[in-house]
């Protein structure tokens, strides 16, 4: 019976050799990637379309995925950035007035290989205990090709920002233009652009490797350095480049990857978290006010708090759970950066005040 979402057999093989047997959905075939979990309960579509997930195999901890189907209104691209998708159950009869189809068709379209009907909670716990690891989802016989797949896993490298960022500058006009902001694209999510447009900022999206000179040529009032996938420290030239950009003296707002790149440019270090922060319920304390905010996050690396030079910067936000660095205020420049997503797309909107703070910095100028 078709109704039961059965699908053909599919397998998830992890770097440690563990095999989970499940059923196939989305595209058939084999994919390798870093297996990460995200705890959001409603924002699966947000997960697909977040470039920071580029190349990853994403596991959804909430068991029922795709209930409201897929719509392209909330996201300017219906493109999926994830390579593999792991759910307990996907919904083949989604219900929402804006639904344009179910997630299976979407994933097929986007070449995303999915697996369902596995014990997602035990997998989540495994990642929690062992840290994120690479894995393979396949619809081939995993047992016959185990060695081949394990080889793929061990040679797999994290993807680079080049693959997600735009190649040419693009400009978006706000309905009530007051400021001009350059958005450096390390793989930006749409919410950042929308939040700027809503606050009267015309947005010039530029490739992440744009030089200080190219940026200056746009005569921006402010610069936003976006989120993006992968290990920030690998982006050596971008980090060097960032030093010059900061030196322009234009207010800068760094978000997620942007936050990390700016910290690295200021001599701080980053390290990988065991299993990252991914989901819509991460509590972050604003040390300035003592208030705790619920934030949406998606990152595997963090800035090492001890490595921050306190003479030029101070930690402004920390994660209430593990106390890691979630935001930095720079004393030597008009630069604020946060590790979480301050925009409200798909997540909580408790921290949109940071955009207003950024606008404030541009006002001061």
């Amino acid at each position, binding site marked *: *019976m078709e109704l039961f979402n059965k699908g053909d057999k599919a397998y998830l093989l992890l770097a440690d050799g563990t095999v989970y047997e499940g059923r196939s959905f989305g595209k058939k075939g084999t994919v390798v990637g870093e297996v990460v979990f995200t705890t959001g309960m409603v924002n699966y579509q947000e997960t697909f379309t977040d470039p920071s997930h580029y190349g990853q195999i994403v596991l959804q901890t909430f068991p029922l995925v795709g209930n409201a189907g897929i719509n392209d209104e*909330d996201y300017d691209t219906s493109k999926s950035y994830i390579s593999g998708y792991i759910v307990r159950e996907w919904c083949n009869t989604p*219900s929402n007035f804006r639904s344009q189809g179910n997630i299976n068709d979407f994933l097929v379209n986007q070449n995303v290989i999915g697996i369902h009907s596995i014990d997602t909670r035990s997998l989540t*716990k495994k990642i*929690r205990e062992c840290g994120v690891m690479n894995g393979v989802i396949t619809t081939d016989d995993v047992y016959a090709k185990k060695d081949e797949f394990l080889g793929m896993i061990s040679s797999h490298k994290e993807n680079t920002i080049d693959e997600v960022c735009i190649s040419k500058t693009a400009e978006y006009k706000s309905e009530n233009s007051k400021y001009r902001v350059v958005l450096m694209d390390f793989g930006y999510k749409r919410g950042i652009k929308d939040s700027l447009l809503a606050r009267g900022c015309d947005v010039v999206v530029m490739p992440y490797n744009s030089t200080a000179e190219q940026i200056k040529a746009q005569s921006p009032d402010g610069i936003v350095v976006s989120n993006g996938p992968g290990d920030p420290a690998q982006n050596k030239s971008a980090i060097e480049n960032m030093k010059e950009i900061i030196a322009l003296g234009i207010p800068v707002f760094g978000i997620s990857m942007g936050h990390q790149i700016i910290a690295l440019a200021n001599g701080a270090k980053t390290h990988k978290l065991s299993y990252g922060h991914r989901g819509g319920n991460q509590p972050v304390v604003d040390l300035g006010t003592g208030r*705790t905010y619920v934030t949406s996050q998606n990152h595997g690396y963090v800035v090492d708090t001890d490595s921050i030079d306190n003479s030029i910067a101070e930690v402004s936000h920390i994660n209430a759970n593990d106390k890691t660095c979630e935001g930095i205020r720079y004393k030597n420049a008009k630069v604020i950066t946060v590790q979480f997503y301050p925009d409200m797309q798909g997540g909580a909107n408790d921290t949109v005040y940071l955009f207003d703070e950024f606008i404030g910095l541009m006002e001061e100028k």
Partner: protein
Amino acid sequence: MPLRKDIKKVLVIGSGPIVIGQAAEFDYAGTQACRALKQEGLEVVLVNSNPATIMTDKAMADKIYIEPLTLDVVKRIIKIEKPDSILSTLGGQTGLTLSMQLAKEGFLDEHNVKLLGADPLTIHKAEDRQAFKDTMEKIGEPCIPSKVVETVEDAVEFAGTIDYPVIVRPAFTLGGTGGGIAYNEEELRDISTNGLRLSPITQVLIEKCISGWKEIEFEVIRDSKGNAITVCSMENLDPVGVHTGDSIVVAPAVTLTAREYNMLRSAAINIVSELAVEGGCNCQFALHPTSFEYAVIEVNPRVSRSSALASKATGYPIAKVATKIAVGYTLDEILNQVTGKTYACFEPTIDYLVVKFPKWAFDKFVYAKRTLGTQMKATGEVMSIGTSFEQAIMKAVRSIELGIDSMNLPKLSKLTDEELLEKLHTVDDERSFQVYEAIKRGIPLEKLHEITMIDMWFLNKFNNMVCLEKWLADGELTEDKYLTAKTYGYLDSTIERMSGQKCPLRKRAVYKMVDTCAGEFKAQTPYFYSTFDEENEAKQFIENNDTGKKKIIVFGSGPIRIGQGIEFDYCSVHCVWTLKEEGYEAVICNNNPETVSTDFDTGDRLYFDPLTKEDVESIIETEKPYGVVVQFGGQTAIKLTKHLSDMGVNILGTSADSIDAAEDRERFDEILEKCGIPRPQGHTVMNTEEALKAANDLGYPVLMRPSYVLGGQNMIIAHSDKDIEEYMEIIMRTMIENPVLIDKYMMGTEIEVDAICDGKDFVIPGIMEHIERAGVHSGDSISVYPAQTLSKKIQNTIIEYTKRLSLELKVIGLVNIQYVVYNNEVYVIEVNPRSSRTVPYISKVTGIPMVDIATKIMLGATLKDLGYESGLYPSADYVAVKVPVFSFEKLHDVDTMLGPEMKSTGECLGIAKTFEDALLKGLVAAGFDLKREGGVLISVRDTDKPEIVAVADKFSQMGFDLYGTQGTQSYLNRNMIATSLVNKVSDEEPNVISLLESGKIHYVISTSEKGRMPARDSVKMRRKSVERSICSLTAIDTARALANVLMTERTIDDVELVDITKI
């Protein structure tokens, strides 16, 4: 901010007796609050009139007053105890309203009492209709547009601004008479003309009609720093129009995209921030199904039924956190107990789906109006947790104890398609089953959606289940089919019935943890639910946390319903506490989200799962317990006994065989004979024919009831063949597995005894005497401890019979025995070898911790070891009177006349030095107004007429004006008691109804030969009294007791308040 330094002694106000809409959830919240306060080293003073609660337990507070929850009583307690603070938001609407009144009057300021948990301004903004509207308008949150108008033209003009359809609600008409939905101007003109005419003040409210919109709720917590988080979102399966307490609810919300979810979440946080709530708050929204339009329906700035549900659904203890906030802490300072590492300032995320299913009393009240609307009717609820909707709803339906194990309700199969569709146009308690039946018959889902407005998501899930069931019935039961059915939540026995084949294998459930964080952090909570998956976390947990202690499982009592209430939770929780103290690992299984037993830190482990044979089997397989306890979980747990015993499980306490001996008619008769104890004569019958023969042999009146029931469900006194026929038909409607019992009915004094027995010795903490004679269910009787009218001889007989029965039945633990004293002879009516409704109350007034002792005895101690002598324990210095409380105003068309079938939803207690004072307190606590002037309307059946004379005389002597219907009036006049004649209901006005409406009558004494049917005059009269909040007495004994109390001329102010910790 840490704990406020200026708080040392806190008064906590409870919610009083259990009524529909205010149930066990407030005992759960109050208990958490008391524990949180004590943890902070604060002195706790508690007042609650409900003796069945855990919060009124000595372990919970330093001073405990089981006193009426009236303004004056609370003021007196404040004067006696001089608390520096009062906690207002944990005791339901009752506690909140009392606190607000005290604050408004300036009483709190005058006595330097700080109001914790709620600011009067916050409460005003949330509860006052206009203030709420203004506040919402100020922050741009939409309310349901409405306007009060006095002319048809104004109605039409306003409707033009909000679009049709609109609801017309006439002011001050009962049950919304004269209102309706208008889809266009023409209809509006019609309806509003009529509505204005019917409204005594010529006023109607025109409101935008939003029925059919999605109903979404958020539970929010905010602290003094302004930190605000949402604990949980919930979506009602039934769209707007049905009270959320009567809706099937799922958590989290499932049909929203991130955009809608965040829109409503932001709105909830906005509202709570603007209201400056410090603590928990429930926000209800209506969301248009095909747009982003929404409206705020209601905001409750206190803990509620929904917050209890959200707590259990996520593992986030809202009441505890709200209490800590009330005494000064902020969310970022409160540790998340579940992880032990993270803080309370986060939003839980879950990796399962929760379903709440309401429990209604319509199986008891067969003539009640079953329609659901804005007035809540459910008495309780169950919650289930699953990894899919199908699994969770399957668990829920087998937990609500309707005798079904799937969504198939057998009686619906008799309806034609037309009848079924017709039913779907009105909402009643069986709606979800009707929808399911319709899907089974192939009625298109779109059509069902159009009629019911239930979201297609839910309909599709039901459809999946229908398809699965067809698949099961079709061809060989393969392993694949079987395993699919298991993940869909079907029991083996259900699969076998539906497929007509044996299961190819037996897959047992595994257990997953409820941890507030979807596995992101390692959790410490031993809180589990079953699913069919790979990893068994409970097993791992047991292995990793091996204490070497013996494990004992305590089975709980399931949903709160009439006849099986919060008392059984009290017993289960006490049993668990004692087991822990005695060095055992105590494991709880239950499915009721409102209770203390399902708080994850009550036991050493909690299994939130249905209490059926198979569900329990899986738990036993995982736990491998040393033994199990069934005697504290009411009939729900007792029903499992035989199965558990057959499985070879060690049942602690009274054996399965003894339980059967007490319930099996023939075996029980043998025991009585052996003990030389008489009982009312009776027969066991299986059908109407046999029933009629038995009744005629015994001679009317007879008492008839199905065996193996609780709360006297479907129990009546039959006076004629016609009664037998009518009720046999109703009993036979539901599955009849067990025989029906027909007994000679003896109208004597009813006596109730709870005893503890260790197999050799027995202790009776107290003998209770009922004010109402046998025939009124013991749960509905006013019960007095110690018995007031028994002769020494009778008392000794009762003690002797109790001894013989306990020993013969080999009771190990608790036993409840009901006797009737008739013509100076003692007869046994019923023996229940388990805990009973009266255990908490007797434990509290006698100071004998009955459950603790019974538990120790089950573990092997003897009464002698524990220092108790055999026999009746000396009476306490106080008289305690338990008065039942009903929820009749919420259950339309239910006859209020008391009888053998239990009707009360809760109880309260009056404690005083004398019987009269105790009764006075009990009556006041139960809401009796005790007016000493005005009119008394009397209408009694012939058999009661001789006795009513003396009672009427008392009222007459006190200066009341007496009114009577024809027979009663002439009888009283003939007996020299001046009584005015009133026309019958069906006669022309002025008649009984117009008299009741006139406001002249303060008491109604009404008994009738026949009742039940809503169309009967006597029922109409009693219903009218309920509607007009007139005190209605339906037993002569109650009326007499009330008259005696009034004649003492004492008021509650004259009676001393008692701190029961000093008893």
